[in-house]
């Protein structure tokens, strides 16, 4: 239960007047305030700075230091105040949490000091309000990263004998600085990449003349040498690729990664060339394949952080680049069309078609101006407009792209963070909600124990259960009144699902295993969280429970309609069920009997029966309740 509304508990209890006239059972007794003291001011002295607040303000959160009796340890008898030898600045935030129900994180505060203080006062940091939560999480993550970096640098100096050979190899590949062998390997591969790229380049340089024929490129003149170099490089690359493939922790993911694709593309042309040397027809295609050898230069990105960042930059602002391209294309088409029609009149113009004018437009707009296509007078007017607008069209999107890029990048990061936090927040809220309802169920069980102990006449055990505060006991009394009004009890989710699972198992006795297997949806979803059997609540199975759970689980089901006319075999049950409400009320005790229900042999679509009455005494057997629902499961 949240804090600030503790003050509204009297209102909630007063609002229960609406339940009284409709309840059929007597209400439980209200908890009395034994030591009904007036609300008093208490003084909290934190390192000399005095804070004052009402006692009830602090008691809103009974599971923290200030809200529980733990603060009595800090009570100073001489000055009649509570003295804490802690930071007063952070205490301000802590006390505000009690007052307003919201915990804030001050930005000037160090994250670890703040965490320490929260741990001291017994407050979970998850309660930090939305306004400050992001900042808190950011700082916490930075702190954690810093700690991790420290740990890593410590660990790197130690040897780690526990890694397998494969893991050491992978680490050596990813992090060349781990060992000298890795460093050697790193430099050797770098060297060979450079050699390969340079040979590709030098291959095409004309290399002097052989007497009697025209100038040859070096590649053809010293073909054997170049072939040997190429072979050596490809050997090294192949060996490296295979080693990486072997060492990768997830081979499938490694194969799909960009770097491995580049590796493959870089070495494939050589092997394809080996295979296809004899075939003269496809030698043209083979020559084209050699262009892919230039991809070897991208292998440098493993060696250079900057290249990787550049690649990531381009990838992340691809939409902006696309926008630039689109606007350019639009402008090019417009101006090409205009130029074509403007030049159509003149006879010897090079503007033969609109696509032919594209080249002119591109060259003009990017201010290159080769001069291979020159318009006549009419075209010059539009040509000048084209070149002027070219400057604008090119120059304008670039700063926009740059600023957009940084904005979007940060925005996406923040949005992802928020989205990730949202799931976590909702989970926390759910946990808190179940926590408060669990508190009620927990105290009910304690109340049961108390009643049982009272019956056996041990009065000193009574006080064991009175550890809840007055507010909590009043809240629980309110929930108990609601239970009495509606004749239903609160149970937790696990118990509910257990009930439905048991009732389902009870109702499919003879064909248990196949039926369970044929209704996998029932067992998996209903009983996905099987809890151990706890015996404090009666285990009476209710087909009604099962009915309800069936409604949730099955996709198609034919519900046995509510037919008041039931078969004669259950007429006696009907009688019992009618005055079932009364016996339920007369006994306020919850028994711990295990009620067994003999299972019906056949599954026939019959009407739904009323829920059985709770047993007034221990160890009674309720006659069989055959309420079956024909379920056509879509599984």
């Amino acid at each position: 239960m949240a804090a600030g509304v503790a003050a509204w508990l009297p209102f909630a209890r007063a609002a229960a007047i609406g339940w009284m006239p409709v309840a059929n059972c007597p209400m439980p007794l209200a908890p009395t305030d034994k030591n009904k003291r007036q609300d008093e001011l208490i003084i909290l002295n934190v390192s000399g700075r005095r804070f004052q607040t009402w006692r009830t303000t602090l008691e809103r959160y009974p599971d923290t230091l200030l809200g529980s009796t733990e603060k009595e340890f800090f009570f100073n008898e001489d000055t009649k105040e509570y003295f804490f030898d802690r930071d007063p600045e952070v205490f301000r935030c802590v006390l505000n949490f009690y007052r307003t129900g919201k915990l804030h994180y001050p930005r000037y505060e160090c994250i670890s000091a703040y965490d320490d203080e929260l741990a001291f006062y017994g407050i979970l940091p998850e309660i930090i309000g939305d306004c400050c939560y992001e900042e808190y999480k950011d700082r916490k993550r930075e702190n954690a990263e810093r700690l991790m970096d420290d740990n890593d640098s410590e660990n790197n100096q130690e040897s780690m004998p526990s890694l397998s050979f494969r893991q050491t190899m992978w680490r050596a590949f990813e992090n060349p600085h781990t060992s000298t062998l890795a460093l050697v390997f790193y430099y050797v591969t770098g060297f060979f990449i450079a050699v390969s790229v340079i040979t590709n380049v030098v291959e095409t340089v004309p290399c002097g003349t052989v007497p009697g024929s025209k100038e040859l490129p070096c590649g053809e003149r010293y073909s054997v040498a170049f072939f040997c170099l190429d072979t050596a490089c490809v050997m090294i690359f192949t060996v490296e690729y295979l080693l990486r493939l072997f060492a990768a922790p997830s081979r499938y993911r490694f194969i799909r990664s960009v770097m491995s694709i580049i590796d493959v593309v870089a070495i494939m042309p050589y092997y394809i060339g080996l295979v296809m040397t004899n075939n003269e027809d496809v030698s043209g295609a083979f020559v084209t394949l050699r262009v892919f050898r230039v991809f070897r230069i991208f292998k440098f990105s493993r060696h250079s952080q900057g290249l990787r960042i550049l690649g990531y930059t381009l990838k992340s602002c691809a939409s902006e680049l696309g926008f630039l391209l689109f606007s350019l294309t639009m402008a090019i088409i417009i101006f090409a069309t205009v130029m074509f029609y403007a030049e159509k009149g003149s006879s010897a113009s090079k503007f033969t078609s609109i696509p032919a004018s594209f080249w002119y437009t591109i060259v003009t707009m990017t201010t290159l101006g080769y001069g291979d296509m020159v318009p006549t007078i009419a075209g010059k007017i539009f040509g000048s407009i084209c070149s002027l607008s070219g400057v604008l069209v090119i120059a304008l999107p670039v700063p926009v792209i740059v600023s957009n890029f940084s904005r979007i990048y940060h925005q996406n990061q923040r949005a992802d963070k928020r989205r990730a936090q949202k799931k976590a927040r909702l989970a926390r809220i759910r946990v808190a909600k179940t926590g408060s309802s669990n508190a009620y169920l927990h105290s009910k069980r304690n109340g049961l124990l108390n009643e049982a102990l009272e019956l056996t006449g041990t009065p000193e055990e009574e006080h064991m259960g009175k550890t809840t505060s007055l507010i909590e006991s009043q809240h629980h009394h309110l929930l108990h009144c609601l239970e009495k009004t509606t004749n239903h009890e609160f149970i937790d989710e696990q118990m509910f699902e257990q009930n439905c699972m048991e009732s389902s198992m009870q109702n499919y006795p003879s064909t248990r295993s196949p039926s369970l297997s044929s209704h996998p949806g029932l067992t998996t979803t209903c009983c996905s969280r099987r809890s151990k059997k706890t015996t404090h609540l009666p285990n009476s199975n209710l087909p009604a429970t099962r009915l309800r759970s069936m409604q949730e689980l099955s996709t198609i089901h034919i519900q046995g309609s509510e037919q008041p006319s039931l078969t004669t075999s259950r007429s006696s049950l009907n009688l019992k069920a009618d005055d079932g409400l009364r016996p339920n009320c007369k006994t306020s005790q919850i028994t711990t009997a295990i009620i067994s229900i003999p299972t019906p042999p056949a599954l026939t679509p019959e009407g739904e029966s009323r829920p059985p009455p709770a047993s007034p005494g221990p160890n009674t057997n309720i006659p069989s309740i055959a309420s079956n629902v024909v379920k056509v499961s879509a599984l």
Partner: protein
Amino acid sequence: MDRCARRCRSPLGQAARSIYQLVAGSLSPDSVEDEFELCTVCHRPEGLEQLQEQTKFTRKELQVLYRGFKNECPSGMVNEENFKQIYSQFFPQGDSSTYATFLFNAFDTNHDGCVSFEDFVAGLSVILRGTIDDRLNWAFNLYDLNKDGCITKEEMLDIMKSIYDMMGKYTYPALREEAPREHVESFFQKMDRNKDGVVTIEEFIESCQKDENIMRSMQLFDNVI
């Protein structure tokens, strides 16, 4: 643009998105919610002495009540949303919004959509410090949704459903669809003397006074504060 980011994961999608942005303009309008038509005017209650005269609370009790009230509603007025939210904190397992609406209508005696501190304290005074007849009157007023002086079965069914809604899903025995209706039937059997299908205030008070349980439970409210 955040909405699009989730949908368009592929680069093709991104290009399409940028084309769309180009055509439609990439400025996303700020969606500022200007829906504050509620009572934002700060309301101060009358003085303590007047409230002491009008209600049966002592000075200290009024002080405690006001401090709690003001903490949750700094503007001095509670609107229906706030009311529902406060009430739902006490019933984590179920859905208490319908019942909270009925309560709100019962507290809001002048039907202006807001419950001020005077309304609040007046209602509490009747429930917690009034005579049994006063309390029964107040309960009747709560049930009579259209305030026409008699409770019909439909009104009672609405109330009953809202009470059962507060229990939530995880109950033992599990809630059935017709449980509220049956409860309404038994209620009318008890209350409706002349069997005309409606319960008037006289019938209600008379029947409640005859019922031991109800009389005893009405006395529970004596020491809530």
